[in-house]
C-alpha cells in the first residue's frame, strides 16, 4: 500500500513569505505527527493530531506556525512570515489508532529553504 507522502519535496521561499506544506498519511491512520529536522539533528516534535483535532501542539515554536487536519486525513502545516531560521526538513508521520508506543510511519519530508 501507499506510504506517507509529502508535497512539495522541496520549497524555496523568501523571508517574510507564507508557505504551506502538505502531508497525506497512510489510509486509515488516525494519528498524524509533524516534526522538524535541522541539519545534523534529530527530528523535533511540532504537533500531533488524533483524528481532526490537535491532541498536542506543545512543539509549535510560535504563533507563526499552524497546522490543520479538517477531515482527519490530509494535514497542512502553515508557516507565516517565514524566517531564515525556519529552514529545515519538515517530516510528517502517521500511525494507526491511539498512541501507546505505536510505530510511526514517516514520509520523505519537505525541505524548506528560506532565503
Amino acid at each position, binding site marked *: 500500500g501507499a506510504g506517507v507522502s509529502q508535497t512539495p519535496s522541496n520549497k524555496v521561499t523568501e523571508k517574510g513569505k507564507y508557505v504551506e506544506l502538505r502531508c497525506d498519511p497512510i489510509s486509515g491512520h488516525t494519528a498524524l*505527527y509533524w516534526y522538524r529536522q535541522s541539519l545534523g539533528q534529530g527530528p523535533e516534535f511540532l504537533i500531533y493530531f488524533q483524528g481532526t483535532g490537535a491532541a498536542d501542539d506543545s512543539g509549535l515554536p510560535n504563533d507563526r506556525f499552524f497546522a490543520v487536519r479538517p477531515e482527519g486525513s490530509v494535514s497542512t502545516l502553515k508557516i507565516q512570515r517565514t524566517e531564515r531560521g525556519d529552514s529545515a526538513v519538515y*517530516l510528517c508521520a502517521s500511525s494507526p489508532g491511539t498512541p501507546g*508506543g505505536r510505530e510511526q510511519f*514517516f514520509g520523505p519530508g519537505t525541505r524548506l529553504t528560506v532565503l
Partner: protein
Amino acid sequence: AQTVTQSQPEMSVQEAETVTLSCTYDTSESNYYLFWYKQPPSRQMILVIRQEAYKQQNATENRFSVNFQKAAKSFSLKISDSQLGDTAMYFCAFTKGDAGKSTFGDGTTLTVKP
C-alpha cells in the same frame, strides 16, 4: 521533560562485523517505549526495533537487538553481520506511554565498509 542522548555522532564498521550504537535517556516516567529508527541517505525514516519499558526481555529483530538497561536508562542497539545496506543515520527515540509525540536523539551516522 524527557531527553535522549546519543554520544556517538559517527561510527564505522566492516561488513559482516558487529557494531553497537549507544543511547541514554532521562525520564521520570514508568510507562514508556523506546525505539531505534533508521534514516538512509534518501531521508525516509523507518523503524528498526521497539522496546516496551515494562518488558525485561530485550527486543530482537533478525540481525538487530537491543540491550535495555532500565535502571541505568540505557538502550543500545547491536547490529550483527553488518551489511552495506545498514549504512544510514540511526536515531534513538522515546515515547511516553500515553502520549503521541516522540523525543529523538541527534543520531549516529553509521558507515558499513566493504
